[in-house]
Structure formats: C-alpha cells, structure tokens
C-alpha cells in the first residue's frame, strides 16, 4: 500500500504542477472521433506553430469529452487562466486561435464554445453550462477529455485506484454488498443486477475463476465503450480489478473488437503501466489478491457480444451461443465460474467503491440507480456522447441536451438491432430498463438514433433485419430462417409488392423468433419490426395498400418531377443525369422520363446547389400502379 500512496502523492504533485501551469497547455481531443475530424493534422500544425513562434507549451492529447458535433476540439489553458475550449477547429482557424490566445494571451472568444473555470470569463460561457452538458451527470465519463489517457499519473492524481484500495480493505463479500446496495445493473443492455451474478459466481466452488470484460460493442451507432476505453482506460481496468476481487477471479480477459485499434493500443499501454506500479500480478497493493489481465481480439462477429458466444470465441471455436443452463457464472470459460461484465458496468465500479453506495443512490431512481452513457446520433442538432441519470426523459435528452431537430420529430430508436423505434407518444417516458421494455424496446448498450419525417420507418426495420441476417450465427432455426422470411417480406413491401396478409405474417414470425430462439440476438431480432408495426402501422399500410412511402425514401415508390413553373431550363441537371432521363432544350422547362429515372438524386442535388432555379425538382410519391 505504501508504494501506491507514494505514487499517488507524486502523481498529485505532478497534476497540481500541470494545473498551476507556468506555461501554456494546449489540449487536443485525439480519440477516434477527434482523429476522424482531423485532430492529427491539427496536432502537427500546433507543434509547428509553437516551433515557428518559439513558444514553449505543453501539448496534451486528451480523449473525447462528448459533443462529437463540435470536434475537433482544441483547448487552451494559459497560466493563471481557465482552460478555454474551441470547437470545430480547422487548419485555417487554428493559427488564428493560437495567435490570439497563446501568442497574445487573449482568448479568441468568437470561436470559443466554453471554459472550464468557475465564473464567467470574457463573455465565454462555462463549458458545463452549455445546454448539451448542463443536464448531464458525468460519473463514468468524468475524466474523458480532461486527462491524458496515456498517463497513469493523471489517473492517479484524480483519485484513480482509490476505489480499488478501498475494496481491498473490505472482504470480497462486503464489496458485493456495496455493489448490491448501490443498485448497479448491467450496462450492456440486459440490466441484470450486477451483484446477483457476482454472488452466484462467488458461491460456486472452483480454484480458477474468470472475469471477462465485454468490449465487443457491436451495435451500429454505439460508441460509448470505445470512447471510454480510448479516453480513460484505467477506469475500466480498475473496475476489472474490483470485480475480480469480489468474485474471486485471478484472470481477467478483455474481449475487444478488432475494429478498435486505438482502444486496443491504449489498453496495452495502460496494462504495462499497471504492472510497473504493482497494480497487476501477485499481491496487488500488498494484499492477498493476485490478478492478471490479457486481451483477446474479436474477429468480426456481432453475435460474439452475447455471453456464451463470447466464451466460445475465446475458446477458439465458432461463436455460436450455448444453451443455458449451465449459466456462465457457474460453468463458463473452460467450464470454470465466469463473470462477463460490460465496459460501462466495470467503468462505474471505481466511482462506487471510492464514494460509497449511498453516494451512488443519489442518482437515478428506485430500481434504476445511477447514470448511463448514451450515444445520441441521427437527426439531432447536437450529436455526441452523453451521460445522464436513469429516469431522464427522452424529451429532455433529445430536445434539451440534443438541441432538438430541424424537421418534425418522427421516432427514436433505442437498443440497436435488439431494440425498437418509439414514436412521439413516448417522449415523456423516463429512460429506464422497465419503461423501455414495456414499450417493446430495450435500453441496450446506449445507442439513441433520432429520426425525423425524412426517415422511412419500414426502411429502418429492413435495415436492422438485414444486419441481423448477416450476423446471425445460424445455429438455431427460428433466427436463421425466421429473420430471412421477415427480411423478404420487408423487401417486398419497400418495393411496393406487399400483400394484405404480410403484417400478420410479420407478427407471427416475430412471435416465433422471439419465443423460439436460442440466444438474445434471435430473441430480440424482431423488436425493430414489432415496435414499428405497433407504433407506425399506418406507414406500413400506406406502403402496402397505397404503394406510398410518405418519407419519400423507398425507390420503387417515388418519382422525380420537374416543376415547370420554376424550371429555367439551365440544363445543369441534364448534364449530370446518368441515364438521360431528364431532358429538355435550353431555356425551356425540362422533363423527367420516369421509365429511365433511377432515382440517384444527382439532378435534385444539382438543381438545389448549382442550378439557377434551386427548387425546380421535387421528389415525391409515385402514382400507384394499378
């Protein structure tokens, strides 16, 4: 224990020194989102600027603080001044910002989005007062975007590994008791009370037990786990140690998808640092607890996010789920008692063990304690990674935090391919496990996709079923064959070839697949279809009976037309049409031949942005063919 205390002290000193910066600090958000937005270029540019201007400054790469729509984010902290955040920085604007704020110590407030100080500063609002941030309660994400994920000392300085130290001072049973009292539920989607699984594992005899972290985040649209690992890897690792101690495991395995190379790199680095600091291996922090962590990379199978399929994959087999019983907590990896927890569940533990269960109970509500991270994407104005208390309503998330939509709201999709689309009537529903399940969806891992009137709901259902069909392992009949039939029906409907009894067939198939499938993937695969049937039935009927797609998306049901009164005959569209469907002489209104039109949008886009008229082409529902 002395070792760590010394190190913590040293780390805190280091952090203090950093905070009381004698020189400027420039923070650049360089997790995957930031990089995709161009952070690497900005990083190089910053270093060049500093060299050219003979200025010394500390350049710190930080992780993702959340609002992806503001990336790339560059923060500047001058000595004695609060840290100021600049959003959507480009190679053009960077030198201006640096020149002003670093060169002349004057924040360039026109481009600043917020600051991290206490009071107002130069008319720049507090970052945490921004509408997207203010309602958030950042527990799991508390360090993301603020510390350097490659510096273990930063983590120590902000009380990292204090939770582990507290846990090691209790008995494992007491640790489970704390987690029980805190009411923590699995954040991977199922929402199963964490302490229950742990208790079963703890009580199962066995010399070798395993703790597996499920970092296979396969839901399209979900990136919470990736962000956490890239921005604060030690939070996950500390959580794994706490969990391992509680259940009596000596080996931890992180099963992480291969598509997250930066996260994998950060984990390897963090694990190396832990070893150096005596936080891994034998007698951790002088206790009887010994633990090791290794990584296993996924190989491209969404189904391996399911517990038993994950175990199969680690064992070197096809990722086909196993029947339960036996449950993994009793007989899992290599037949040993195994606990599989999601990244977020584990990432929450250090906070609970550091601050206590009573503290955690202040957030959320009875039965749904604590917070949850969500990736809020789609047609909202402010897209990104957020963390809110359980029980927050969808309306608060979409409109207060997300800034609402530009066009009328249509639906919110939760839970990825296992979840469903909820309509307007659910906006005032609290986001908690039971409410979402009652509506026919699930909380899932946290993907929230906002849709407006330009989204065809049948097309969305088709998209998810196509995904499920590609990812189904093929072992059991209901999922492998049933989802194929559902997909075929949806394809017919979107092509305008639906039959009157299709809706009944969809419901029957959905019912069979839900009840008959072997694993969670199959059991939840029909949810996108069943929820959209329930809440958007009319849209289905329109496709089938009227051959009409009200969102004007399904290609076979729409047509492109020229509004003769508005067309100036500039021929911009004629030049770009690949099939020669749009024709017309100069200065005379053009015409679309529907038989040749392939709905590629070229003419529409050209007219809007490059032609004279701008709105002479419309896309609308086709006349129903008899």
């Amino acid at each position, binding site marked *: 224990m002395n070792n760590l205390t010394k190190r913590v002290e040293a780390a805190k000193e280091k952090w203090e020194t950093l905070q009381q910066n004698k020189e400027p600090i420039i923070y650049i958000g360089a997790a995957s989102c930031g990089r995709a937005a161009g952070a690497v270029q900005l990083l190089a540019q910053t270093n060049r600027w500093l060299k050219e201007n003979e200025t010394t400054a500390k350049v710190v790469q930080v992780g993702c603080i959340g609002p992806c729509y503001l990336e790339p984010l560059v923060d500047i902290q001058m000595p004695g001044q609060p840290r100021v955040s600049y959003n959507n920085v480009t190679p053009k604007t960077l030198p201006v910002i640096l020149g002003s704020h670093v060169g002349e110590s004057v924040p360039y407030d026109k481009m600043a989005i917020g600051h991290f100080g206490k009071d107002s500063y130069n008319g720049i609002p507090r970052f945490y007062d921004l509408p997207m941030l203010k309602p958030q309660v950042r527990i799991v994400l508390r360090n993301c975007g603020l510390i350097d994920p490659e510096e273990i000392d930063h983590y120590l300085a902000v009380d990292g590994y204090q939770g582990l130290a507290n846990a090691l001072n209790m008995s494992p049973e007491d640790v489970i008791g704390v987690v029980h009292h805190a009411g923590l539920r699995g954040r991977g989607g199922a929402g199963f009370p964490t302490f229950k699984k742990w208790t079963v594992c703890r009580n199962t005899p066995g010399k070798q037990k395993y703790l597996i972290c499920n970092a296979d985040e396969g839901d399209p649209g979900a990136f919470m786990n990736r962000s956490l690992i890239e921005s604060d890897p030690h939070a996950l690792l500390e959580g794994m140690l706490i969990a391992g101690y509680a259940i009596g495991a000596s080996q931890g395995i992180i099963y992480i998808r291969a598509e997250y190379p930066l996260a994998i790199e950060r984990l390897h680095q963090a694990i190396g640092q832990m070893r150096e600091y005596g936080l891994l291996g034998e007698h951790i922090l002088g206790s009887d607890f010994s633990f090791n962590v290794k990584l296993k990379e996924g190989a491209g*199978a969404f*189904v391996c996010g399911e517990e038993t399929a994950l175990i199969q994959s680690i064992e070197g087999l*096809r990722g*086909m789920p*196993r*029947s339960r*019983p036996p449950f993994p907590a009793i007989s899992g990896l290599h037949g040993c008692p195994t606990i599989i927890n999601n990244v977020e569940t584990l990432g929450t533990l250090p906070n609970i063990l550091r601050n206590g269960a009573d503290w955690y109970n202040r957030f959320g509500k009875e039965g749904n304690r604590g917070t949850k991270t969500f990736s809020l994407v789609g047609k909202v104005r402010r897209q990104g990674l957020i963390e809110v208390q359980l029980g927050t309503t969808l309306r608060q998330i979409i409109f207060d935090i997300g800034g609402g939509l530009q066009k009328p709201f249509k639906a919110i999709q939760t839970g990825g391919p296992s979840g469903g689309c909820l309509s307007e009537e659910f906006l005032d529903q609290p986001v908690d496990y039971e409410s979402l399940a009652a509506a026919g969806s699930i909380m899932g891992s946290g993907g929230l996709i906002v849709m407006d009137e330009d989204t065809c709901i049948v097309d969305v259902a088709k998209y998810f079923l196509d995904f499920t*069909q*590609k*990812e*189904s*392992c*093929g*072992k*059991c*009949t*209901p999922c*492998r*064959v*049933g989802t*194929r*039939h559902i997909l*075929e029906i949806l394809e017919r409907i979107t092509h305008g070839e639906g039959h009157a009894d299709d809706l009944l*067939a969809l419901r*029957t*198939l959905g*019912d*069979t697949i839900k*009840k*008959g*499938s*072997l694993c969670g993937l199959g*059991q939840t695969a029909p949810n996108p279809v069943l929820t959209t049937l329930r809440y958007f039935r009319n849209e289905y009927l329109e496709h089938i009976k009227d051959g009409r797609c009200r969102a004007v998306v399904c290609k076979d049901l729409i047509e492109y037309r020229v509004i003769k009164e508005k067309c100036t005959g500039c021929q911009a569209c004629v030049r770009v049409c690949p099939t020669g469907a749009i024709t017309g002489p100069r200065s005379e209104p053009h015409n679309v031949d529907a038989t040749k039109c392939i709905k590629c949008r070229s003419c529409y886009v050209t007219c809007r942005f490059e032609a004279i008229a701008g709105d002479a082409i419309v896309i609308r529902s086709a006349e129903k063919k008899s």
Partner: protein
Amino acid sequence: MTKEKMLSITIDNKKVSVRPNQTVLEAARDNAIDIPSLCALPHLRAYGACRLCVVEVDGLRGFPTSCTTPVEDGMVIRTDTAEIKILRQEVLKLVLSEHPGSCLFCDQAAECKKYMGTIRKVGVTTGCRYCPNDLHCELQDVVEKVGLAESSYPVLYHNFPVEKYDPFYDRDYNLCVLCGRCVRVCSEVRLNSTLSFKQRGRLTTIGPAFDRSHLDAGCEFCGACVQVCPTGALASKVSKWTGKPDAETSTTCVYCPVGCTIRLQVKNDQVVDALPDYSSEVDGGLICVKGRFAVPEYVNHFDRLAKPQEMTSMGYNDVSWDDAAAKAAEKLKGLGPDDCLFVLSPQLSNEDLFAAQEFARQTVGSEAIAPSPMFELGDDLLPFIDLVLRSEPYALIDQAQAIVSVGFDSRFGYTPIGIATKKAARKGVFLASLSFPESNLDMLAEVSMREEPGRWAELLKSLIDCVSGSGGAIDGDVGRIADATRGASPVLLIVGPQILSAPGRADILKALLEIREKLSWKVIVAHPYTNLLGMLTLGAFPGLKPGDIVRNGPSAGAVSLRFDPVDLNKPRKVVYLIGEVLPASLPP
C-alpha cells in the same frame, strides 16, 4: 453400488419419479411423453439447435429446450400447452421452408398408392421416388407428431449439386436442415472432424475445408454421420433406394479381431444395410468402413459364391449341396494322412474351426493342419503369437499414461482401439505414432514418425536403449518418445498390422518382445487374423489339441508353444481350403 437418489418432478400435471443426471427430454421419453426433436441424440452432447423440443418450466424464463435442461428435484414442466403446440408448428414450418416438402404436402397423397403401374412397352411398376429417406425419415415422423398439414412460407431451394463422387455415401445438402448431428458425431464420438460447419447465418453449409472431397479431407467412411442424419441428405449408396427395411438382425463382424456388433438391416430377405450398435459392450458402436459399408456389398455381390460349383472341362458348374458333398467325400476316401493338407481361414467361427480340425484329425487322421497365418508368417509365427497371447484388454487404453503405436492405423479395422487412443491423446496423454506412409493417429500424436518399415527395427532398438538408459540417440523423435515414456506407467504399446508385411519383420517382432519384457510396457496387438484366438483355443494348429492352450497357455504361466512341423512345400494329393483364404497364403 450406491443407489441413485430418484428425483420427483411434475410433468404435464403428472408427478413422476426420475433418475438424476438426465435431461428433461430423456425423462419425458422415459415416461411415455414423446417430445419431438431433430437435433438431440442419446450419445451426443446436448445442442439445442432445432428448437422443436421446447417446453415450459416454472422458474425458467421463456421456452427452454428440454434436450439441454437437466432435471432437478421439484421441477414443474409443461410439454403440451396450446402455446407450445403452436410454437412447435411454426418452428417446424421454418425448418420445412428450407427443405423440399413434396413428400409431406402433396395434394395427390390420398389417391396415391405404394406402387403405380406405368404403361411402357412392358408394363413396369414405379413409385414416387424423389428422396432416399421417404417412408423412413425422421423429419416425416416429426411432421406427423407435431401435426402439420401445410406450410405457407416460400421454400428456398439452394440448388446445391449432389455430391456423389466420394465412395460409399452421397450427400445432397438441399435436404440438410442443419441439425448438426453429423458434425457432432464426427467430432465428439469419432474424434475425426471431417465435417464442419462453414460460414454462418443463412450461408451456413456443412463439409470439409476448402470444399475438398471427403477422401482428401481425411474421412474414414465409418458412416456414423449417415446413420444420424434425420433427413435424406446423407444416404448410403448401397441402400439408398431400397426403402424401409422390414427386419433387423444383430451379428458380429468378421473383418478384424475386435468383432464389433453390427445390426444388419434386411428387406425382402436381403441384407441392405449394416448399422452400428451404440449399446454394444464390445465396441460401443464404433465400427469401421468394412463392417459398415463392405458387408452389404460383399454379401450381395454377384461374384460371391452362393451355390456349390464343380470344375469341369468347360468351366465351373453349379451342383447341389448333396452332390457336392458326395463328390468331395469320394475324392477324399482312402487317402492317407500325408496326402492331405488342410488350410484354414482365421475368419472361421469357433464351431467351424472345431469341426475342421475334428475332420482332419478324426476322419482323415491327419495332423497336416495349416492355418493361413502359417504361410504368411513362416518363422515369425511363434514370436507373433507370443505377442498376441499376452495382449491386454482394450480398457487399458483409458488408463495409460503414455501410448506408442507401431504400424497402426484404425481406419480399416480395430476402430474402437483407435478411437480410445484418440480420446486419450485429446485428454493430454502422450501419443507417439510410427507408421508408413501415415496413420490416422498422426494428427493427435505429439510425435509422429513416418518412416519406411525397413527402418523400424533399428528405431525400436534405439528407443529401448534410450529409455533404459543404455546409450542411444537422445535427440530427435526417438529421444522425445523416450523422455515422455521414461517413468510413466502404464505405458501402452499398440502393435498394428503394418508390421506383418514389413521387411525385417523378425527383427521388429524381436524388438517388440524386448520392449514388453525389458521396459515392462503393456502391449495391445491389432492384427488382421480375426479369430486367431479361436484357432489357438480350438486346436486349429498342427500338434495343438483343442483346449491345450487353456490348460497350458499364458494363464498357466510361461508360454512355450510348440507346433508340430508341417511341410508346406510337400506336394499333396488334396489341399482342402476351409474358409476365405487369400491366394498369397496358398502353398506354391
């Protein structure tokens, strides 16, 4: 023997007492509740893929499969609610949407007869023949049990070409319902893994790597997969179109000393198929290609002698049994003991062997009895028999700490030995294999030596030296074997038939005997002489009377077997061949 504590469960409102350690499916079937299933089988691990055997269990969410749920005391189970019935029907409809259903949903079924007359130049009868499994198909049975009259889902026909260029059985994967039984039996029971699931989801297929032929992929053609297939996807070529057998007889295979039980399938008094018997205590159902596929073909082969024949100047003529016996008796009358030589086949039954030696000794008065191994082995016969008589029971394989096999390949005989060895190797027991050109044990062997048989004697000698510490090579494969076996006990030496045709056979046998005596390894001999032990016991050797070996043999202590010399090269008036004898075994 401790009595198992019975468990009490309630199934469909009936309280019953069941054995522990079984699944709900098994317990139900024991109590006359026949839950339908396509992928479950008694000797395969529970899989839970077809989803037909779903039930409701109080305390378990949803609809668990009864084949994967173990019974627990006090369990309440429902197998037949309306919801379950509908679920089963819907799942079955999905299964059938990937399987041609003309045999199930033909609208002419009511008017159809078993045979239809077809008007051709000569009238013939035909039947509706589109699937080899018709009328004895598990899928048909399940459809009947579940009670399905029609399926509204569009059928997907994959259009796979029928795979018929491998020997013994055909594969038509258009009929496959992906129950996985074939993959599991090949992997769990036969420890071979020729068949594997490939790709995933709707693209899943079954077969060997890289679409190789089964011959190239290491298939042993044991036919275990063919037997477990619930549809007509896998079908044995010889019995494919013979329809449902009408009788079954159990018998013993004569192709190797193991003597596996085979269940002959008979139709219209003809043997049409041979199936394993998984409850057999001798072999546990692990028969090889010979017992499985060779038997029906040989039994019905047109070249097989079915009637007595007499050689005439115009060739062979059929004669009646009485005539044949009379003519033979005539030729043998008045012959002296030295005029005859009796050559006996090791495939003869005990009864036949006794009768043969009785005839030779009592009727003809001759001791010129020559079992065919005598021809083949010459001077090596005695050392070889020495090895055989002290061969250990097969159960020893399960207890061995290390196994070394010489000249052994269990694909064409002695399969139970081979599979038990593979099982041990999978569990971590050291396995070394010396063979040429290869052995089916190679894949699992830690040391696999593929050496020309001419070198075997010297390799074995250096192994003995190495293990006993008296010098010899310490590097290389022999060294590794020595290291693994030194200090292990029991070490098992499996001797296979390849040594019998090896050059330097005498030296090999000498080395093997030395291994047994000097290193105290236990020996199991796998040889091709089916009833060699019977021959020895019943006195089918010159100078060995019936029962001698039991009185004086290995159980009585030292073995000193002496056979009377028989001059095999002496010209005789009569050579009486009894049983199947290879031409190579005949006297010049």
